[in-house]
């Protein structure tokens, strides 16, 4: 007999933000709870003069990460391996400052890539992390940029891609939306509005617009209790004018103001919590597609090769990539009133440690809504799923409320 929270679970909602690392957003929480694999304050990277650039709790909401830190495949390779190209190289996480120096050739500025937020500066994200389940070991799927990482969240694979190229998925692995539809279930991608649109699944928008709605529709579906089984929510990717005036980007992609992303996360949470029936039957996962070139101290672990190979012409490192290592760690929080307060899911190297990545998303949705399903990537088949975290026998009534000014 499953625990009651899992028994009642009828909806999974995924909110995927942009380009921030675990330590940058949540590393400061270690001082409050040593179980959280954040920062001790002693971590550093060498800058290009050889001096140590330490981590500092001086991250600002906007203005420090312009130009955008590099996060293409060769940039991330440098960040993880510090330029070591030897066959037996070890991931040291010592190349972030050197990598960012390449953007502006300004030593002082390059050291800001080590900055992280004081927890009180991110009241929404840190409250959710302390109130629900925080993953110490959730990694982006590829040491590379947005699109290939987001592909893992939709397909459990990037089909051999490590960059931002236009690609069409091979039919062998269907998207989670196709799978659910074929199984008689419902699924939707909610983009913010038409001017923000969808970021990663243009081919789905082209051929299956029935899978899409906008954020106003998401809120309306929450109120009406008509949310599909599986929902994927996209934030606003640009500053633009809407019908009611100025709309700020809420994706938290550098150099957008991080506070607007906080408000968006709170808005998604409030929309679900505002409907009592939905709240008790929904699990909300908040995560980030990749680290955006920003420092994290945990070396990405190796993973099972997927059968795909990215050639040196694609990796631009002079070496092929066999999809045998995950990307840099990102924040991930699972929200449900059936999760014990202050759950910390141990990560790499810890007793009982578990490693999650974006392929865990379709793996979990498939497990819950379809069951046995073979037509998917090796990576997805072996990915950890996360609904076992809904362990409480009684639903919590002490969960936080966010009041948006």
């Amino acid at each position, binding site marked *: 007999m499953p625990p009651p929270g899992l028994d009642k679970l009828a909806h999974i909602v995924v909110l995927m933000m*942009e380009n921030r690392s675990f330590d940058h957003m949540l590393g400061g929480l270690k001082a409050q709870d040593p179980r959280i694999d954040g920062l001790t304050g002693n971590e550093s990277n060498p800058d290009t003069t050889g001096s140590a650039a330490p981590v500092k709790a001086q991250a600002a*909401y*906007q203005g420090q990460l*312009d*130009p*955008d830190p*590099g*996060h*293409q495949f060769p940039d991330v390779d440098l960040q993880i391996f510090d330029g070591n190209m030897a066959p037996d190289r070890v991931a040291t996480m010592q190349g972030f400052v050197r990598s960012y120096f390449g*953007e*502006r*050739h300004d030593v002082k500025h390059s050291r800001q890539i080590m900055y992280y937020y004081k927890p009180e500066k991110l*009241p*929404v994200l840190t*409250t959710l992390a302390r*109130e629900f389940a925080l993953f110490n070991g959730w990694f982006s799927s590829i040491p590379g*940029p*947005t*699109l290939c990482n987001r592909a893992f969240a939709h397909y459990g694979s990037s089909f051999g891609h490590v*960059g*931002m190229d*236009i690609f069409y998925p091979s039919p062998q692995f269907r998207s989670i939306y196709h799978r659910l539809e074929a199984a008689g279930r419902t699924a939707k991608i909610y983009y913010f509005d*038409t*001017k*923000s*649109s*969808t*970021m990663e699944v*243009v*081919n789905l*928008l*082209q*051929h299956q*617009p029935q899978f899409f709605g906008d954020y106003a529709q998401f809120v309306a579906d929450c109120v009406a209790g008509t949310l599909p089984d599986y929902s994927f929510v996209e934030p606003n*990717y*640009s*500053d*633009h*004018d809407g019908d009611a005036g*100025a709309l*700020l*980007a809420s994706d938290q*992609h550098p*150099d*957008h*103001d991080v*506070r*607007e992303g*906080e*408000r968006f996360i*709170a808005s998604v949470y409030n929309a679900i919590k505002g409907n009592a029936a939905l709240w008790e039957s929904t699990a909300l996962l908040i995560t980030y597609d990749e680290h955006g070139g920003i420092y994290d101290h945990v070396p990405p672990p190796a993973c099972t090769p997927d059968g795909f190979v990215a050639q040196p012409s694609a990796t631009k490192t002079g070496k092929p990539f066999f999809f045998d290592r995950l990307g840099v760690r990102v924040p991930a929080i699972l929200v449900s009133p059936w999760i014990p307060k202050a759950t910390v899911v141990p990560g790499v190297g810890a007793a009982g440690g578990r490693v999650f990545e974006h392929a865990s998303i379709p793996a979990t949705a498939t497990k819950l809504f379809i069951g046995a399903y073979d037509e998917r990537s090796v990576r997805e088949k072996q990915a950890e799923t996360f609904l076992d975290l809904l362990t409480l026998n009684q639903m919590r*009534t*002490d*969960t*936080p*409320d*966010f*009041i*948006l*000014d």
Partner: protein
Amino acid sequence: MAKVRVPRTPRKAFDRSRRPSSLLLGQIEHLEWAVLPASQRKPDQLPARKVTSEAQAAERVAQLTKMLHESHAAEAARAAAPGTARAAGPPGPVILPPLPKAVARRKRRPAERTRKSTRSARSRRSRR
């Protein structure tokens, strides 16, 4: 239960004239690719790279997203009435609309003026 106040983001954070990230330019390229039939796809001729501000990028994204929805609706209508589709013949070439008007850049604050990127235009384009 805790009540957490989430303050409004300061108005000064809004900058519709901000240079679009390579992520946004990449999104436009993907959308332009998707609205064109295979025979018309010539990546080097796509105008995404001429987009100079976030607001302009947003307007372009909206144009292309609407085109995708309209094209799918037209396809669905043709499928629903196959005889009519035969009489009408194959669909004609897709013409991308002109880029929306660019937005003038916001005057930078003195501190911002001192920042200078040394990245080449090429590396800016490659960043997503």
